[in-house]
């Protein structure tokens, strides 16, 4: 009996001394940051209808490998977790929870999808998880301003306005139709085109929606043809592009096709459309001629030699995350979500990356605002037909 009492006493004393110490340690600890590591996660569709964009998350992986090889950041190596959400918002939300509650990541890098990202946004913000460069140009990332969220991708609304402006002012097109995915991604593109049209006193010839799951697009093509459009702007999935171009060609409808930067991999698009992509005009946010692009593809050969796809979407996995790594470097050894945000907000007119003129301020977390326009050449190559442009509307 005495022995037991002694043991209990020892236990009480032990817990009384150890537990507060443990709590103290927990309060100092920053989630996802140790002396040697920074934990970062990303979701991306490796399967499902948007799988072509899944290369973004794999590109980021190679980028982090490269950063680690070059010595890491302030003595820490990045530990990267990639998860497949199959472009389903319900899965994205679960992944975000896994990142925060199970893995305890410091931040989230990029992540494909507007509706998928929206499913996770508020949760990540409530938990003060820094998130940089969602791989989508939705305005929801920077409007309203979220303290821990930094948008890199130029806004779809601006991009669509610019493309419409280019069609009207440079190419003299008057009847422009818009073919969009019936969700936030497509609708924001549509909004941008409408904004410019309104300003120019025009009306879009047709606004035709397509659902993610649709496979048969004959009636869509017929509707576009009926509108008599001279140009059609596409804000859709890569898999829908060959179907709509093919169906349109089959009914003798061959307008000037124009595409969002989400379809900017001209080699891939040329291949899957069996050559129909030639002559398509599209927006870009990534300078593939930069020497950095070459360096990154060398890194791919080293770190991901089995990667089947190394086009624009793969390099996009670098460009969306470059500002994050820059921010981490600027934050240095004393890394917390708040010091990181402060460091990010010192990035002004930064051009040491694949993008153009990255600027974050405490009032504005939309990092890149410019795009340029290219045309797909006869072999699927990218032909640049404009400089970097910034939409100055409203």
């Amino acid at each position, binding site marked *: 009996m005495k022995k037991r009492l002694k043991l209990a006493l020892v236990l009480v004393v032990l817990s009384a001394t150890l537990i507060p110490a443990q709590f103290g340690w927990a309060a100092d600890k920053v989630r996802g940051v140790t002396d040697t590591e920074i934990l970062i996660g990303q979701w991306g569709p490796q399967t499902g209808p948007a799988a072509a964009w899944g290369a973004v998350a794999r590109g980021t992986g190679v980028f982090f490998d490269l950063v680690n090889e070059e010595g890491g950041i302030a003595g820490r190596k990045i530990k990267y977790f990639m998860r497949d959400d199959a472009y389903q918002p319900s899965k994205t939300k679960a992944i975000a929870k896994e990142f925060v509650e199970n893995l305890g990541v410091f931040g989230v890098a990029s992540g494909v999808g507007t509706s998928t990202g929206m499913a996770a946004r508020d949760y990540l913000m409530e938990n003060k998880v820094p998130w940089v460069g969602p791989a989508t140009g939705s305005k929801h990332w920077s409007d309203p301003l979220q303290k821990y969220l930094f948008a890199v991708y130029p806004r779809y609304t601006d991009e669509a306005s610019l493309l419409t402006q280019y069609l009207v002012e440079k190419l003299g097109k008057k009847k422009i139709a818009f073919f969009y995915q019936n969700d936030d991604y497509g609708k924001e593109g549509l909004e941008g085109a409408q904004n410019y049209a309104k300003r120019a006193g025009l009306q879009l010839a047709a606004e035709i929606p397509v659902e993610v*799951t649709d496979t*048969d697009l004959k009636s869509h093509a*017929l509707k576009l043809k009926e509108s008599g459009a001279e140009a059609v702007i596409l804000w859709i999935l890569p898999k829908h592009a060959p179907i709509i171009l093919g169906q349109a060609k089959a009914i003798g409808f061959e307008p000037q096709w124009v595409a969002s930067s989400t379809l900017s991999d001209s080699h891939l698009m040329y291949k899957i459309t069996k050559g129909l992509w030639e002559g398509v005009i599209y927006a870009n946010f990534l300078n593939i001629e930069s020497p950095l692009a070459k360096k990154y593809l060398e890194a791919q050969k080293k770190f991901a030699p089995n990667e089947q796809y190394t086009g624009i979407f793969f390099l996009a996995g670098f460009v969306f995350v470059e500002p994050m790594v820059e921010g981490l470097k600027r934050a240095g050894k004393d890394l917390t979500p708040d010091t990181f945000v402060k460091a990010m907000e010192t990035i002004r007119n930064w051009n040491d990356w694949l993008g153009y003129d990255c600027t974050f301020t405490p009032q504005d977390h939309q990092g890149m605002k410019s795009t340029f326009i290219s045309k797909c050449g006869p072999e699927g190559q990218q032909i640049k037909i404009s400089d970097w442009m910034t939409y100055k509307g409203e």
Partner: protein
Amino acid sequence: MNFFMDLIVGGLAIGACYALIALAMVIIYKTSEVPNFAQGEMAMLATFVAYTMMANYGAGFWTSVIITMVFAFALGALLEICFLRPAEDPGVLGAIVITLGAEMILYGIAGWKWGANQNPFPVPFSEYSGVTISGVVITEINFWTLTVSLAVMLILFLFFRFTKLGTAMKAVQQNPFAAKAMGIPTRRILTFTWGLSSMTGAIAGMLIAPIATLDPNMMLDPMLKGFAGGVLGGLTSLPGAAAGAYLLGIIENLFGGYVSLEFKSVVAFGVIVLILCVKPSGLFVKHYKRKV
């Protein structure tokens, strides 16, 4: 008027693809009363085999088609032997769950082997040109899709009606116990059924891929629509299911053209619900009551 006719042609073309899927499902349904939800993925996998033959081994289109048909038959038979046969009297619900499981496995295999990217599927006839009848274009692929689906339907119909094997398959469905007692090798018949169905599905896959591009998700939508078309026409009758699928293709296109593109895909499922309420055995089938 041209707009209307174009919609009809489009509806028939996609309806023909749905019809092949519906036929593939009917074949299995007729012998085991199980709707096979792995049908789409079986077709997708077979189409990938055809693609690999052409893209990686430089085989000609027709050689690839023949190899694919052999593969499809083997795949169907294998699925029956490996998944359904070991299940001890699973009942209809259990069997459906088994087919769903097979579907996921096949989907996973395709993603692992071929990746999730789109692939262009070449065919020796044009997707863009064909004959023009008073302003309405019927492309070569539309024409061949229609012809092939009708031919397959006819061949299957004759097969079930006039061959010994076909009759045996029907007997297995109507009374497996009696069929066995009469000396019909019911197990082998079932395996054969799955092979035959898988071949029919593979044809659908190879006709859808040139337009939709080939990727592991290719058959998700056509498979559900094919099933919906089959239910519309009646899953117990080959011509009925095919007619239902054609009709569904046309309804869908007309709805998309005149009413709403947003709800175009939903129409198929609206139709299923309606038919299940009004005429559960399908539009073109006499009401079938289970004899106990």
